């Protein structure tokens, strides 16, 4: 009887540690990946070549965003679940920030976009692009939408940035339908350098076969 109880308590403790470690792991991964991606970004900026954050990565950083003047995040291309674990991810169906159209960037509410909760209309979001230009976007709306009934418009006459994360921020369960959507428009004249007229597709490397965690 008592030995059974000891076993049960040990098992429970083990499972508990495993779960807590699992939760920590998600956060460690998110933070550690940002360090690597950040330095890949710096490397790319210094020698002009797209750099991979870690040797076996199949994606490259496309932009660096800063909001509230302190939270700086490097954005990866392609909003797959795997990328989202590492960094905010740019939806490949949308344009890159600063180009004419709506650029959509998503990130997890528990990790990278935790602070998006405090976004207010009028806030500034700084975006550094891979071509070296820096743009300033001004938050024009903060809304909550139902993802089952809404999609993000890819078209926009002016450069627009849309940051998306899950809502509510303190929900326990993942997979809910609500999304927290921050829309920001390019501030006219604020360091806006128009996109270069180059074959962007040609400049980007072809993706290598998927490898990763």
């Amino acid at each position, binding site marked *: 009887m008592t030995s059974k109880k000891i076993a049960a308590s040990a098992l429970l403790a083990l499972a508990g540690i495993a779960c807590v470690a699992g939760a920590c792991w998600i956060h*460690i991964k998110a933070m550690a990946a940002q360090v690597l991606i950040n330095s890949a970004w710096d490397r790319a900026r210094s020698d002009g070549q797209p750099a991979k954050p870690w040797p076996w990565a199949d994606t490259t950083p496309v932009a660096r965003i800063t909001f509230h003047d302190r939270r700086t995040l490097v954005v990866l291309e392609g909003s797959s679940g795997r990328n989202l674990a590492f960094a905010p991810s740019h939806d490949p169906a949308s344009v890159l920030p600063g180009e004419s159209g709506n650029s959509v960037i998503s990130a997890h509410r528990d990790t990278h976009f935790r602070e998006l909760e405090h976004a207010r209309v009028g806030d500034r979001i700084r975006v550094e692009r891979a071509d070296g230009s820096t743009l300033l976007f001004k938050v024009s*709306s903060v809304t909550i939408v139902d993802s089952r009934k809404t999609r993000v418009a890819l078209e926009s006459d002016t450069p627009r940035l849309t940051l998306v994360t899950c809502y509510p921020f303190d929900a326990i*369960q*993942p997979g809910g339908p609500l999304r927290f959507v921050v829309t920001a428009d390019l501030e006219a004249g604020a360091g806006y350098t128009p996109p270069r007229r180059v074959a962007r597709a040609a400049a980007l490397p072809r993706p290598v076969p998927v490898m990763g965690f």
Partner: protein
Amino acid sequence: MKTDAMPLRHRVANWLALLALLLVGVVWPPVFGATAESNEPGDARAGSLFLCAMPCDGRPLQALRQSTHIRAQVTGNVARVHVTQKFENPGDQWVEGLYVFPLSTTAAVDELQMLVGERRIRGEIKRKEEARETFERAKSEGRRASLVDQERPDMFTTSVANIAPHSSITVEIAYLDTIPFRDGRYALSLPLSITPRYTPGVSLDPADLNVFHSAREGRVIAVASPNATPERVTSEVQHAEIEVDLMPGFPLQTVQSLNHAVTTETVGAGNRIRLRSPTVPADRDFELVWTPVVAPDTHAAAFAERFGDETYVLVMLMPPQMTAERVYRREVLFIIDTSGSMSGPSIRQAREALRLGLQRLQPTDTFNIIRFSNDASSLFPISQPAVGVNRQTAAEFIDSLEAQGGTEMRAALNLAFDIPRTPDALRQIVFVTDGSVGNEAELVALIHRRLAGARLFTVGIGSAPNAYFMREAAAAGRGSFTFIPQIEHVSERMADLFRKLENPALVDLQLHWPDGATATLAASPPSDVYAGDPLTVAAKLSTVPRGVLTLTGRSGGGAWTRQLPLQVVADSSGIAKLWARERIGELSRQKKLGGDAAESESQIVSLALKHHLVSEYTSLVAVDETPVRPVGADLQAQQVPTSAPRGSAWAQTTGFAPTATNAPLLLLIGLMCLGFALALRVNYSRLCVNAERHVA
């Protein structure tokens, strides 16, 4: 190496981070992370331990369901197609349903029937606003009603009001279509999925979501976002049942369904074939292709039908197998769409099409490639001869093309027209795209305005290209069009296209009617008829014609003449309707190219009402007599989404990525486990202490 310049502190941080990733990655089983990182939220919800199958508020979703059954009867060159849509309401509330669906761009929709139990209620054709009013009145009075509107030339909507809880309403829509004999084959195309032209992005308060749903009546959708069109696509694959009864009128060599598996059953001596496809995925168009044993090399016919006191004639003709005149030098501009909607299989098809196109060029020809997404750029500033080094550069350029970003077609077309022309060469523009744009009319007008002697050919790519745009752009560009449904068809279809590019088969075509009868043509015949393209002319005649119709033109460097006897066919065989449909299309085209809008509208309305056709200004509405919904019972509006094309950006992603990890959940479960463990432990210690006391 520039990395040497990096401060030591940063390098150490990097190594530590990499180590952390590796270490934890190795020792930690990836199972736990997987639920949060699953690519498909649908799968995660369905299969995962931690995620629920219900939305956040805990109520299961009782969504309106729609199922489609298509029955097509093909007789010779004409198809009669019945589309049956069943709307099932599994919930406890009364529901108003909305469904957006694609149809062939040349479909003449003339029939609507609403099935309520055993009864069939026939729909009436009315002006759009009148039909909407009738529908709304019936809806508010609690009567069952259905309405079919044309949203775009190839996109229709069905609205169904007052579907009782746990019951269904079936709507049957019928249309008439012509089956062209193109490039040596007949093709019946049944579109099943929609490539969204613009994705409606609306910011809405959760409290207003029901308003968004019932937005139909007042078009609140359009107010919420000026770019919104009513299509709502889902990445979940829906299914449709398809039945085809094929009576081609000649022995068949092959029958092939390009995108779906079908079972065939031959009836009689092989002249009648029944195809069944119990349930096919509706994420791509259904394409049935058949070829005759003997290619009708003198394929030409003229059919006449009496409708009231008018005579309608349909002329179908295959152009001669020779070229009109030899063009010695060509300048080929390839325009390739690299927008986000082309991602997946589409861009691979497009690249392959481009490679083949390049191979077919002669060294005397010049060429250039323009790619576009949200901007446009060309490979060369001026078209270059198709020789070794240029071909090599082009091949590398093609390999590097990736699909991403918007669809700025206007920029691409303007760039193409701005590039200086190669002297003494015929400029041909080959436009490779899925056509997922909403501003078709503007683009077609641009092509029309700036063509200046060039020719534009369209190549439609993907599982559900915008067929309307492909046809209209090619017509405005005095060229031809082709579709590449799957990568296997690239070489065959590009070969067809290049046969056409090499030269038009027939030019300066004229029709001479017998007995001096005057004809109103539905649309003026094209100035260039290409090899393999059928020529279809629909005309309304002032008198009953007697004698033969004479066609003249130039082909093979000389005069070309053909005489066709007019065969009078049975009344109500549909020629009048097909004429009216084509005439409406032409009027709408003229209006978009800057004609008198009010005049076009009134002509379209009178034609559509006379021939019982759905058009941009007329709709079909069916209303039941007796009210069924009790007074005071709520009516909830729901829209059934349409399948997004396979492989498209809409099919690969939901509008929103799953942006929550299960870290909080894991933490909660973990802490609870530890809490229990601790409780057990404490309990056990107490037990031990008690036992010791007992012994003492």
